């Protein structure tokens, strides 16, 4: 700007927060997804993601529209319903330098996309996978989704007769290396969890309860603002500390769990539940199940394996993006080719 009057805060990459914004949302006013978009903008800005390195992936549904609402300069991929994980897998394999961020919903993940979700986790592709979870289908006007809780009531009075699919419990069961649950209304908790997810090497699942103000925010719903606020069992508050180096934070022993992530960043979990250990997989499963039994929503970093090895590492995919290799790297040499042809004669 030529006027130079405004003093703009720049992040570690030297970019202003403006750069992390996108088109205006077309979702309903008050939609939880819009809050998540704002938290994402903050998280990406603070983390200092270079926009051109960001690949925004999504499927179909209200949630899947949101990649258009942040980081305009980044490439976005709004694919087909429930199939974002496969496209994300291809993109990451083609270019390991990309920070792959997937945004899905509860229908997109737990119904039509359940297969791809499971296999994504099983392969531990290095990506962040957000489920914007409101327990219903918005664009088709309010049908239950598979994450709706048993006994939850629709606006028209219909009661959900089926068990819920808990995408966090399922992820842990499948061997996920990073599983968190949060609430669209709790940016303080969500932003550092998002940043920890970016820093993690492997599939980082974040199930973010995100009320649908139009179709699922009434008495009897277990995904309403009111219900979530009343039943949010917070394991810990989280702080994210970017970058490598010694961490000098003083805290009372046993009150904080400090976890170093793949890129050297740290996530500090200030424990509210003193007994909770976010690196204990069985404990995480127990916490999810017990909270559900109490009708509560357990939020925080449920489980992380900081030593996780992602798909590209396991498959020996070169560091240099595969997309950049040329003829000389990829073709069989002339002499070897001649020998190969001889072996067929």
């Amino acid at each position, binding site marked *: 700007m030529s006027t130079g009057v405004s003093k703009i805060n720049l992040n570690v990459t030297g970019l202003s927060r403006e750069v992390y914004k996108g088109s205006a949302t077309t979702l309903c006013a008050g939609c939880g997804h819009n809050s998540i978009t704002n938290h994402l903008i903050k998280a990406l800005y603070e983390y200092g993601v*270079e*926009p*051109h*390195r960001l*690949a925004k*992936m999504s499927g179909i549904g209200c949630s899947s529209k949101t990649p*258009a609402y942040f*980081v305009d*300069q*980044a*490439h*976005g*991929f*709004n*694919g*087909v319903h429930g*199939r974002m*994980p*496969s*496209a*994300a*897998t*291809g*993109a*990451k*394999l*083609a*270019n390991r*330098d*990309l920070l792959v961020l997937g945004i899905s919903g509860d229908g997109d993940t737990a119904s039509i996309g359940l*297969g*791809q979700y*499971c*296999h994504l986790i099983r*392969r531990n592709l290095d990506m962040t996978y957000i489920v914007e979870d409101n327990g219903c289908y918005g664009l088709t006007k309010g049908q239950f989704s598979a994450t709706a809780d048993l006994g939850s009531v629709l606006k028209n009075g219909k009661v959900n007769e089926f068990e819920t699919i808990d995408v966090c419990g399922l992820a842990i069961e499948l061997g996920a290396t990073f599983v968190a649950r949060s609430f669209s209304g709790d940016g303080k908790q969500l932003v550092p969890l998002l940043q920890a997810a970016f820093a993690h090497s492997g599939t980082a699942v974040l199930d973010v309860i995100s009320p649908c103000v139009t179709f699922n925010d009434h008495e009897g719903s277990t995904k309403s603002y009111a219900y979530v606020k009343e039943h949010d069992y917070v394991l810990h508050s989280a702080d994210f500390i970017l970058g490598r180096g010694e961490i000098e934070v003083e805290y009372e022993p046993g009150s904080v769990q400090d976890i170093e992530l793949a890129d050297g960043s740290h996530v500090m979990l200030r424990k509210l539940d003193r007994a909770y250990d976010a690196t204990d997989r069985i404990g995480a499963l127990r916490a999810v199940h017990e909270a559900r039994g109490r009708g509560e929503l357990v939020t925080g970093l449920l489980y992380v394996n900081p030593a996780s090895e992602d*798909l*590209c590492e396991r*498959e*020996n*995919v*070169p*560091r240099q*993006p*595969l*997309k*950049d*290799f*040329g*003829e000389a*790297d*990829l*073709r*069989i040499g*002339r002499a*070897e*080719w001649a020998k*190969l*042809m001889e072996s*067929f*004669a």
Partner: protein
Amino acid sequence: MATGEKIVNDLTIRAATVNGSGSQSSNLVLTHALFRLGIPVAPKNVFPSNIEGLPTWYDVRLSPQGYKCRSGAIDIVVALNAATWHDDVASVRPGGAIIHESAYPVSGATLRTDITYYAVPFGELAKKHVAQGSLRKYLVNMIYVGVLAELLGIPSEAIEAAVREQFRRKPSAVETNLAAVRVGVEYAQTHLEKRDPYCVEPMTGRTEGSILLDGNRAAALGCVMAGCTVLAWYPITPSTSLCESFISYCDRFRADPATGERKAAIVQAEDELAAIGMVLGAGWAGARAMTATSGPGLSLMAEYAGFGYYAELPGVIFDVQRAGPSTGLPTRTLQGDVAFAYTLSHGDTKHIVLLPATVEEAYEFGMDAFDLAERFQTPVFVLSDLDLGMNVWMAQPLAYPDRPFDRGKVLTAAELERVESWGRYADPDGDGIPYRTLPGTPSAKAGYFTRGSGHDEFARYSESAEVFARNLDRLARKHETARLAVPQPSIDESGRATAILAYGTTHHAVVEARDRLRAAGLEVDYLRVRALPFSPEVAAFVARHERVYVVDQNRDGQLYGLLRTDLPAADAARLQSIRHYNGVPIDAAVIAEPLLEAERSLATPA
């Protein structure tokens, strides 16, 4: 020797065995031994969808002319499967011979007077000469190689060389197998009197410089040389060996032993829909990516295929066709996916489809597919079939590529700096092909939003009627551009009134059918379609002929139907349809006989 003339190098030998009994090694030894004698060979493996127990047949056709299609008749059967004994006897052409386990009854329906029987106690011979019980069922097959060698006059050196080649990775097996061959030779020498007319003699001028290779391996080599770096696949017969060959070539030629890194990423996906999703995700991000499947997998891919077409993403999909609908006959061949693949997905979707006929084309089109996919920013389908993919064919050595990759219209950061703005789905060149950028391009102008929903020239969401129709029109323009960019038809024409139009592996039957027609006094021109959309040359060729017989290996005449839609009505009326759809590779008679009949009925006034 029986009375009558000798039949030299012109016969089909069928080995009828039980699946899982290890007959494939013996069949390959026989094939290679004949090939080494300079005799053109064309093997066809007719195998069950089964690991062990069901009947399997292996036919190897020898022909001095070098025909590569089935002959349509079986001259000599080696019968080693009690379950198919009756059918196997019936399958021998009159005047032919059957070499069989002597325990099988020759009476009633299995007693024919027009064929020669050679009874061999295979079971007993194996028991007597093969010490290790577990090897007997395998070595029985080598005994029949010996019997055949003796009866047909295949020199022992040729057999020995082929055995050594077959077991080059397992030298300890060479002597055991050679010993079994000798058991067969000696038995035939002492117990069998030659009473059939068939024999083989070394030839020159037909096989020199040729190779023996299956289409799936050739296609895999095409992918390697095309610089494919991402393979996502789901195992399905008959495409599996294409993927496994690609993987083994990558392990062999793309791995760095020092770091363990391999310049390829390979994912066995959870299903074919995930496989194509990975391919298109990788193509979007700039890697050359492929998958291989067959009909059922193609059905599953329909959703993402339409996305790839509309969002304009490169990717290569090999469909090694088998006999459908549904599960159909998984181990039999057909060209049943042509119409489906061409318009795969809902809405007005049209794809580029390549139609290889030969091993050489499986390789070349394998490479072309990646260039076309990136040039046209769209999924490209290569429709091979089980016959081409899984059978071994005589072919010319595959030529080393003579041109660099064509990465298509990709804007770099530097190029972006020089333009004011760019539209991802604009058409500045008038050919319908837009420009694209890759994620990771370090420029604030690079990013755009890829979506399967309505979008304008700048990739912005749009529900405008005008914008939507305009975009569909541009996609149609792009498809028109492809008509001249895809492999052009191969034409053999000399002004005849009648022509054959075929595609894919039908080619080999057309070659022989034209010879037969010529012998019957009818010369026909020939056009082979090598890709969709049709080149303008196809329409011009049809217009130059009074009658064009379109040969399809499917029930509904799928290419015939596509042609009728594509051509002006007057030219469409010149087309007639010949169809073959029983899952067995087409032979010359299927084409020549109805064609000759139709032509003669025209010539004869009613």
